[in-house]
């Protein structure tokens, strides 16, 4: 089936791949073009697919009129810290789940799967009360700990898949040489695991960066808002200012997209290593 490819087959293949690429890229292109139009040109007819004249007005407005720089910084801080912590914690749990057999193991894996089934809205009220008691409402640390908890289950399963692919002899040799299990994990396995850890970190980072409902619930002062919360604010006004919205969207998408561009190979490996091995 994977044998020789006919010329016609080849042409069809590239035609479909090309069409799919167009379909994938167009919405992103369209939002970028809109963001670069002068505010007055966005609602002009006929619709222009190239911004003429180019204008950075929409972007300027975001930083002059709104605190978009603050929101970006908050998102960056919260996502980086949460993704780092979640990845580190999941490394420990993923390692144990890959290397040991014990009675509660399948129950724990089931509990991780169930967390994926729970709509986050069911937890919002009690979580808000809990965070109030802890004094962590409208506090970036509060958002970090909640995000860490959100990231752990899937990240654990993902890293478990990675650990399962690494021969156990590797850390056993290190332990015979006198390293403790913990230092064997960090000094011997960590370097081998680098792609998996990169994948897990990026996956966590993107999830935190994109999370909306928890941040809307927990962050309310302007100084603590994250980007999604700010975007949500833009949309609740009856008439959407599509110029500012597009510029904000581009600034929100760009960092995660850059991250994916540099590390897509790792992410792909990370996502697939667990499932393919089944």
């Amino acid at each position, binding site marked *: *089936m*994977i044998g020789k490819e006919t010329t016609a087959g080849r042409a069809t*293949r590239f035609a479909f*791949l090309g069409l799919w*690429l167009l*379909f*994938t*890229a*167009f*919405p992103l292109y*369209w*939002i970028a073009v809109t963001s670069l139009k002068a505010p007055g040109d966005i609602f002009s007819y006929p*619709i222009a*697919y190239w911004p003429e004249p180019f204008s950075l007005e929409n972007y300027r407005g975001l930083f002059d009129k709104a605190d978009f720089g603050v929101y970006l910084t908050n998102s960056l801080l919260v996502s980086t810290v949460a993704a780092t912590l979640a990845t580190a*914690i*999941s490394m*420990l*749990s993923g390692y144990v789940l*890959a290397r040991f*057999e*014990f009675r509660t193991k399948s129950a724990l894996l089931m509990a991780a799967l169930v*967390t*994926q*089934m*729970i*709509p986050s809205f*069911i*937890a919002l*009220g009690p*979580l808000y009360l*809990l965070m109030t008691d802890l004094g962590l409402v409208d506090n970036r640390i509060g958002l970090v*700990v*909640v995000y860490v*908890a959100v990231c*752990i289950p899937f990240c654990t399963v993902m890293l478990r898949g990675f650990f*399962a*692919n690494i021969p156990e002899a590797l850390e056993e040799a290190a332990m015979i040489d006198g390293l403790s299990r913990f230092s064997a994990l960090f000094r011997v396995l960590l370097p081998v695991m680098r792609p998996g850890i990169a994948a897990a970190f990026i996956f966590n980072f*993107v999830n935190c960066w*994109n999370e*909306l*409902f928890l941040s809307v619930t927990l962050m309310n002062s302007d100084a603590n808002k994250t980007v*999604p919360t700010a975007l949500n604010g833009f949309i609740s006004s009856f008439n*959407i200012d599509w110029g500012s919205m597009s510029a904000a969207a581009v600034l*929100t998408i760009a960092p995660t*997209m850059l991250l*994916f*561009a*540099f*590390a*897509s*190979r790792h992410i*792909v*490996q990370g*996502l*697939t*290593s667990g*499932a*393919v*091995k*089944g």
Partner: protein
Amino acid sequence: MAATSPTTGPAQTRRPRPATTSPGRGGRRREFTTRRGLVIAAYLAPAAIFVAIFTYYPVLAGGQMAFRNWKLTDLTDTSWVGLDNFRAIVADPAWGTVLGNTVVWVVGSIVPQLVIGFALALWLRRRFRFRGLYQALIFFPWAVSGFLIGILFRWLFNSEFGAVNDLLQKAGLIDEPIPWLASPGTAMTAVVIANIWYGVTFFAIMILAALQSIPDELYEAAALDGAGRTRTLFQIVIPYIRTTLVLTVLLRVIWTFNFPDLIFGMTGGGPNDETHIVTTWMIKTTQQGDYGRASALGLIVVAGLLVFAVFFLLATRERREVRS
């Protein structure tokens, strides 16, 4: 940019193994020792503590609200009301639409995602120049938040200044602009299209990785037996990657079910509540201040997904004779 270099294979699993082998340890069973138990507990503790406090505790606390009267209008009376919240949900005339929409949303998204993702994976198996770059490019929707995808497509489907109507008119497919998000049928179509845009990549990547683990000998044997392309696909390829297919579909169904973000950003459930799915309906109920009923909706989601997961896994359980 190493990630997009044309020579690097994408989802390559370094040591392809048949999908049936269990991970490395063989049958070696270790005896239980206190020390070993302590190691396990210590390594699991941080994860368990975080998830218990910030996920399971609030979820359980929220879950019991489903059986109580818990309204923003009167927070003093939080008495036990049994199944009243569930009865109120079912009695709501909109409930039928919400359920129907949820089915359309999940099935209408997952089936095309699976089919297109499978096709893309098959087409992507051969090496070609810039394949790595191509994969990185089609991976981008995955980096965009559901809420932003909603906003993106809301703008694309704008009836006057959106690109969709403009392009369709230029292509001569429609004469008049279609008010996509203003009428129920087209609005549901539009949100599903947006979700397909987002989800195909995940299927493509997972299936491609699985396809690359199929040993060449299997294809050669099939060719020797004179199996055509279709037969090879259905009798060799699909059974071989069954585990991946089942897990990917299961995970995507669960995630799609719990993905109100996109609809929330695109239509907000409108027009006239016609694009609500269960989870956006839950958001609306929360915003209306009826926390008891919103929690009941949440429990319905969890229960529905658990039942689905069990049936799906049973229905797709491996049958030995298929593989041998």
